[in-house]
């Protein structure tokens, strides 16, 4: 489907003037206490009819602000200049009434968070009808019929009933599809989607991207897809623009930009992201440094301070976007030097850790079991509100999970939000009591230990949290944060300050900054502080709870490298909890996949990605977008129906059966087995076990054989 679409677009592009949206030299400034924040510094792009443009950038690159400026949705304090023409009509500077006539009719927007972009007190049908009637004189019944039709287009099952549902009765993925239905209600010429899938799980992301595609097909609208995820862009747009520090630094067709980037930053972005379809490379290639502060007046190229190619000319003059007439432009003085350069050649590999004297963990034979969990069960009571707080139900968060973490190995625990992976991590640390089951560390039972008995063991098993902004006490200096575990365990008196400085150096921070507060650091640096704190007590096991998922792509790589290096030098064992399969493939030795509180499949990492046996794992692997436009187009994709059922009332038998494509294809008799009997984890050989009655190994990173026939030579 994409390929035909693509062909049409090239035709219309060749035909010339099909421009629907023309943004030229857009600037946005916000007055702040610290001077003007120049969020968008001269953005220009053209969108042709029916075209899909991806705008990629990290947080703070100005990608959302630029879109909001076009929509006229910025706060009044923002100073906007430049021009944005929609079908020849200037949008910037329009009055409220005038822009309201355009907004929602000719140009529509899909926001990131479907929880807040729908009004909770009206039915979704009413909200769609409102959007239609705001711009068209349509009788109520006709508008309602149109709403049902729109819901069907975006793939909502039983639209006749759902049209009367309130937003809270729908899941996140469904709500986002309703938002898309509202956006397409008046057949707009342009739909701007601002991180439409960032708040959603991968399997749901696939559904929503599918709905966006359906919306484009039905309305013929051009799409601006704003995202930080190179993979999402690769499979769903025709052209891509990369933003950095408020400016488009590279633009071109997806294939061109991904295969032959001409701007060092783009190359860095591509190199810093681990790939799910490639076996573990030695190290990722992080982009050094951090984006510049936009409150300062900038001279020269904004990327120059981080760029290995930077010459004096880069610091003096800002390179204009230049191209070779093929529509592929880059703002770099040395764009032609990048031809055929791989990321690791451009960005010199550096050790992530500094040379400091290390005390390695006490010797444990490689691969000996360190932390063993058996049949863990955790239920959270749900209580009614009010004085009596009667128990009204139970969340079955973890149901019979068994894990084995081995010395110097990384076990990844993978699953979507709400599957119980973080609860499992906390059970392993004995941070919350288990309802049933046992956790043993080097043979010693942890469950049921008192706080006092647990304390000496705390130094052996430590945790790093997901959110580097919430996991450090904002009122403690970094020194205090790292010193705290030492103080608690009475080890501070013995050379404490020196040890803290050593730890900071170890994670790549400057000990000079020890007296700073967490808010003075960037996300990546804060995560390093969190790692230093976890290492303070010289643990043997680190539980990493989504350690990089809150970080920007170019920063992620540095933290992943640091973790890998620390593991090698200190002999650590990791339990790596994550929803990001690409990172997991890069760091893990073994993977366990969780769904609704149960482990559905566990296998050595290579086997899991090349021969997944459980239908859920297969769907997960196929849903993760790859940062490679060609492969994305030819890959077989399993889009799961529906959403994860409520853990308050999980389905009987196999918990995945309600969404399972294998189940759907079974005969009635075979199905009854799935309904009655929960499948146990069955060994498939080579340490690979899957909990499915009808398990069948498949490789979803290669295309299917028919795909191979179509374009066999395109992949390396």
């Amino acid at each position: 489907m994409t390929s035909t679409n693509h062909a049409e677009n090239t035709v219309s592009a060749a035909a010339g003037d099909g421009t629907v949206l023309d943004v030229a030299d857009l600037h946005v400034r916000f007055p702040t206490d610290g001077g003007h924040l120049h969020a968008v510094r001269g953005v220009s792009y053209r969108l042709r009819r029916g075209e899909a443009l991806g705008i990629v950038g990290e947080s703070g690159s100005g990608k959302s602000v630029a879109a909001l400026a076009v929509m006229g949705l910025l706060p009044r304090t923002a100073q906007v200049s430049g021009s944005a023409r929609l079908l020849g009509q200037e949008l910037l500077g329009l009055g409220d009434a005038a822009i309201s006539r355009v907004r929602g009719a000719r140009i529509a927007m899909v926001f990131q968070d479907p929880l807040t972009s729908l009004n909770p007190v009206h039915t979704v049908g009413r909200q769609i009808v409102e959007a239609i009637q705001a711009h068209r004189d349509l009788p109520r019944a006709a508008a309602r019929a149109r709403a049902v039709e729109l819901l069907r287009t975006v793939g909502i099952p039983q639209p006749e009933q759902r049209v009367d549902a309130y937003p809270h009765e729908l899941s996140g993925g469904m709500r986002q599809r309703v938002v898309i239905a509202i956006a397409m209600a008046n057949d707009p010429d342009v739909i701007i989607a601002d991180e439409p899938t960032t708040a959603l799980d991968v399997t749901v992301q696939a559904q929503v991207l599918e709905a966006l595609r359906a919306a484009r097909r039905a309305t013929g609208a051009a799409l601006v897809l704003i995202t930080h995820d190179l993979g999402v862009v690769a499979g769903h747009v025709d052209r891509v623009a990369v933003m950095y520090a408020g400016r488009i630094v590279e633009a071109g067709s997806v294939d061109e930009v991904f295969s032959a980037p001409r701007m060092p930053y783009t190359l860095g972005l591509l190199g810093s992201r681990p790939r799910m379809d490639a076996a573990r490379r030695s190290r990722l290639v992080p982009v050094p440094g951090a984006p510049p502060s936009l409150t300062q007046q900038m001279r020269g190229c904004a990327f120059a301070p981080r760029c290995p190619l930077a010459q004096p000319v880069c610091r003096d003059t800002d390179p204009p976007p230049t191209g070779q007439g093929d529509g592929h432009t880059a703002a770099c003085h040395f764009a032609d030097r990048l031809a055929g350069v791989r990321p690791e050649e451009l960005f010199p590999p550096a050790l992530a850790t500094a040379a400091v004297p290390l005390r390695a963990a006490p010797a444990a034979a490689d691969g000996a079991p360190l932390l063993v969990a058996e049949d863990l069960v955790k239920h959270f009571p749900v209580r009614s509100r009010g004085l009596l707080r009667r128990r009204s139900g139970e969340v079955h968060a973890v149901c019979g999970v068994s894990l084995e973490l081995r010395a110097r190995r990384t076990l990844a625990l993978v699953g979507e939000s709400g599957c119980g992976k973080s609860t499992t991590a906390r059970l392993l640390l004995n941070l919350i009591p288990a309802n049933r089951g046992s956790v043993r560390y080097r043979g010693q039972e942890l469950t049921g230990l008192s706080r006092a008995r647990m304390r000496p063991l705390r130094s052996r098993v430590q945790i790093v949290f997901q959110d580097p902004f919430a996991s450090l006490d904002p009122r403690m200096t970094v020194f205090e944060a790292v010193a705290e575990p030492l103080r608690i365990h009475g080890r501070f008196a013995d050379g404490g300050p020196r040890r803290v400085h050593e730890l900071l150096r170890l994670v790549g921070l400057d000990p000079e900054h020890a007296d700073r507060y967490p808010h003075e650091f960037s996300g990546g640096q804060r995560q390093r502080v969190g790692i230093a704190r976890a290492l303070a007590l010289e643990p043997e096991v680190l539980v990493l709870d989504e350690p990089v998922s809150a970080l920007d792509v170019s920063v992620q790589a540095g933290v992943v490298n640091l973790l890998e290096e620390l593991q090698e030098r200190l002999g650590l064992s990791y339990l790596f909890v994550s929803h990001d399969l690409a990172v997991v493939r890069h760091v893990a030795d073994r993977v366990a996949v969780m769904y609704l509180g149960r482990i559905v499949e566990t296998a050595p990492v290579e086997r899991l990605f090349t021969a997944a046996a459980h239908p859920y794992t297969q769907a997960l692997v196929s849903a993760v977008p790859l940062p490679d436009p060609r492969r994305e187009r030819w890959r077989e994709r399993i889009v799961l129906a529906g959403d994860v059922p409520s853990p308050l009332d999980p389905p009987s038998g196999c918990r995945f059966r309600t969404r399972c494509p294998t189940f759907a294809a079974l005969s009635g008799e075979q199905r009854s087995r799935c309904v009655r009997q929960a499948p146990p984890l069955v060994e498939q050989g080579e340490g690979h076990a899957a909990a499915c009655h009808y398990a069948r190994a498949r490789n979803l990173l290669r295309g299917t054989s028919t795909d191979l026939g179509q374009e066999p030579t395109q992949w390396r």
Partner: protein
Amino acid sequence: MSELRTRPGAPTPPADPPAAARGTAHHGRLRLVLTRFARHRMAMTSLAVFVLTVLFAFLGPLLWPWDHTVHREILPNQPPSWEHPFGTTNAGHDVLGQLMRGTQQTLRVALTVSVLATAFGAVWGAVAGYYQGWVDAVMMRAVDVLMVVPLLVAVAAIGGNVRGGTTWWAVALIIALFSWTTIARVVRGVVLSLREQEFVEAARAAGASDARIILRHLLPHAAGPVIVAATLLVALAILLEASMSFLGFGIQAPDISLGLMIDNARTAAFTRPWLFYPPGLFIVLICLTINFIGDGLRDALDPRQTMVRR
């Protein structure tokens, strides 16, 4: 202004000379707070005025010939003069002498109430919020019960039935007994919103005790709202003390407090303003300076507040 408000997550340049200049200031937290407080101009001015008020109240009586009691040598009912800068009362008090003693007693009561109620309320609220469940339910119901008791009636009832009920510390204790509840509610709210944060879990994972988590991680975050509530308590205590005196349960003649002075002079506001306005002025001064000092403290204690207010 050299310091700018730093955005959370704003990129930090790798090497920054000021950081080196600050040195290894991990023991310098107190010094840092003090420097930041010193930069708050209103707070510094208020602190100076407050210190002068305290000196006036506690050292003044040692230097001034007249105390707060009736003296036969004093001509009653005189307007301000060189001998009696704030005039004299009908009964033959020197008003300046009364002001000194009155400020002294009022400061004692107000500050004692503020310190006691804040300390007790903060711990009560933090414990309730941290442990939740039935501990929270029982503790907060107690707060609710105390809150619905009409303050003045209760204060008066207890004050009238306790021996020594008119000494300043008894008055302070009684007022404190009924005024810690607001602090407890404020602190509980802060603790409830913070206890699920990852940094609390991180401390727990490091093996920290409950006491350490409450004292080191949770209570410092309540500093802002608690300081505001505590400064309001100072004003509340002054007013309550005055009302008690008026009802005959607070500090009683021959002793004197600012509230009592105003009460005594309430008919003289227009005819003999020198009796009425000076104690009023001192009450306003105390409340205002305490408020500004509280503001300064709150800003100095919050590491994210790097803007300097003038």
